């Protein structure tokens, strides 16, 4: 034997490796997102399918482009860019013009990721950077909602979807009127609550029979995806839990003070993009702190800030900015919450 086939390889210990890799994590996040995408397509129709395809393809193409420009090996294979593409589409209104979605995807990858040096170096969640950009650039289009379950959703597109590049989207009001079923409204539950004090029933929020961003409507499906990931240990359960807890901690006292004006905590949790943000975006590993206590601070901060923006700010939804701010301060949180090392736990 020995002299024969034994070619030895010199490596540093440890010589064993847990099988889970970055690709595995990212791939599983994509799996968890697929049901959310499926529901979004089912609820809003072909337009959302096109939206998903557009953002994902543009994200992949931009990633390839930036990797080439920076002379880096292509990182398309690590799946993270697919997550960015899918998440971005899920945060946009269903009838968002495709050309604007493409702009968002390009900005997400360029400004949100490539500029910082690619996966692992980005400070903020790329998908949210892209969305924040189009929110600022096209404030009208990004607040144009369409109701779900319109009868024509699988046979025709929402008229704004195929807007020519650089032109204004067609108004969708007439189209909604033609297609309308009485029960559904184009206003989002958050807007209804904020401006008209109409609270949408919890059952609708859970199942997603409401207007809103493509992927945020069904809290239930998002939650299932989160549970899947948490069970596979590919998601830090503390982040979604912390975000939701933070939201409750702020909204509960407000609701107790003035139930007529402020929404109840359950509504706060289930409406808008809070669930999607808590499960899939705040929990993005790159943007969250590494230390256990830091994770709690970060998550509670996002949850609390979301509700503060919603209740006291000019915007109806605050998840996006809350998460982006959380991302920005997370290195700081990591730094000040260094774990107390073994043998020094008791000391100050």
């Amino acid at each position, binding site marked *: 034997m020995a002299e024969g086939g034994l070619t030895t390889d010199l490596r540093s210990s440890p010589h064993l490796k847990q099988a889970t890799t970055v690709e595995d994590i990212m791939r599983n996040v994509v799996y968890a997102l697929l049901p959310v995408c499926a529901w979004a397509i089912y609820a809003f129709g072909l337009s959302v399918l096109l939206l998903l395809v557009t953002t994902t393809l543009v994200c992949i193409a931009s990633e390839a482009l930036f990797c080439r420009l920076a002379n880096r090996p292509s990182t398309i294979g690590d799946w993270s860019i697919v997550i960015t593409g899918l998440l971005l589409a899920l945060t946009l209104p269903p009838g968002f013009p495709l050309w604007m979605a493409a702009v968002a995807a390009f900005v997400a990858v360029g400004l949100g990721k490539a500029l910082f040096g690619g996966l692992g170096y980005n400070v903020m969640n790329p998908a949210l950077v892209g969305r924040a950009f189009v929110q600022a650039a096209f404030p009208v289009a990004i607040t144009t909602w369409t109701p779900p379950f319109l009868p024509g959703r699988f046979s025709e597109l929402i008229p704004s979807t195929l807007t020519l590049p650089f032109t204004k989207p067609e108004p969708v009001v007439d189209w909604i009127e033609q297609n309308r079923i009485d029960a559904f409204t184009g206003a989002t539950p958050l807007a209804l609550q904020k401006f008209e004090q109409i609270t949408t029933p919890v059952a609708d929020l859970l199942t997603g029979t409401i207007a809103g961003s493509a992927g945020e409507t069904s809290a239930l499906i998002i939650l299932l995806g989160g549970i899947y990931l948490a069970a596979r240990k590919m998601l830090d359960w503390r982040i979604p839990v912390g975000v939701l807890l933070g939201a409750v901690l702020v909204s509960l006292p407000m609701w107790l003070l003035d139930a007529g004006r402020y929404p109840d905590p359950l509504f706060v949790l289930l409406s808008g993009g809070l669930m999607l943000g808590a499960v899939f975006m705040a929990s993005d590993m790159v943007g969250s702190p590494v230390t256990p206590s830091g994770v709690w601070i970060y998550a509670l901060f996002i949850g609390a800030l979301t509700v503060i923006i919603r209740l006291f700010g000019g915007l109806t939804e605050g998840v996006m900015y809350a998460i982006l701010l959380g991302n920005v301060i997370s290195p700081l949180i990591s730094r000040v919450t260094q774990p107390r*090392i073994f043998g020094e736990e008791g000391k100050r």
Partner: protein
Amino acid sequence: MFGLSTFKHGVHPREYKELSNQLPIRRLPFAPTLVLPLSQHAGKPSVPLVQPGQEVVRGQPIAAADGFMSVPLHAPATGRIKRIELMPTARGPKTDSFILEVYQGSNQQHSYDNPQDLAKLQGKDIVQLVQDAGMVGLGGAAFPTHVKMTPPPEHQVDTLVANGCECEPYLTCDHRIMLEQPEQLIQGTRLIMRALGVERAIIGIEDNKLDAVKAISELLPAHDPITVQAVETKYPQGAEKMLIKSVLGRSVPPGSFPSAVGVSVFNVGTLAQIGELLPHGRGVIERVVTVSGPGVEHPGNYLVPVGTPVRFLLEHAGVTSGAHEVILGGPMMGMSVSALDVPVTKAMSGMVVLEQNDPDLHKQQAHPCIRCGWCVEACPMQLNPSMLGMLAASSDYDEMANDYHLNDCFECGSCSYVCPSNIPLVQYFRIAKSVLRERAEVA
């Protein structure tokens, strides 16, 4: 398992103990040539007592201790010293070694007995006998045992902890020793307790070796000062500080020895050898070595003379055609070797041969850190390997040591093991430590 006492963090690699833990210890034939480094222990190398060309008898002391931080060396076989020359060893650079040609005709009788009346031995005598036996920590640290038995006077040691965790995957030699030599283990433990003057001893064993727990407990009378305690099977349970935390709940402060919290820790293999050798006044000349891994045809625990070349051991255990990497020690902390001529030393507990396509052995390119925090959750010292890794990448070694406790890392490998980005964190830390050491020496 819930409810078992344990430490925070750590990892759960697959154990692979089933490859060898059911097989009794077997004795291997003597290799034709033994290689005996003069430095098989931490501390000063021993001083040769014999000349090249001289014949030696099995058990005869052939090198003497050079001061307190040193131990003697005994001839593992009857034969002739061919020469003393620089030979490669598993750890670090080449060192002076005896090359011993074994007489194949010899019956290899042990003829250097110096029987002791155990009842009469004082603590001091035991310490001396342990040093004379050339005893070192057989778990891998190779720290001279008698030094551990002499804690600094400012520390009051009240408990002896016997380390039967064997948390490294694949390794089962301690497990087999506990099953096959429980009497010797208890004997050795009582002797050291007497030397240390402690009233209590706890044998900590991971709960994947409950048969060993049973075997030892059965031999202990009720209310014996020695107790056996099962601890959670988790890597690195066998690290001194972790085990003390698990069985006693005491935390050894950073940079301190266990004696700072009143504990002395000994490997069960060491204790069993002491129990075996001390009554006869013999020296350490052989040990049990686990040879295992997917690349080994006949995994098992082999009793071999110290100095047996690794190659000889592998030839007897058989190596598969896919064998690719030979690791001395366990796969988490051991080192891979290229030269198979290195010998088995006193502290070598096993060797693991991995195959090229081993599923656990990922050799993909490293990704950038995605800050998943898994390493932080894994580090038993509760350091922040993620931050340390980033600092290492930018060569901020001083910051690593000053602000992030680099020197408290004992290189258990948990962080590298869990890292989904395949970042060789432990390797970074080793480099950082050695750079800092060099700088300190220059300054």
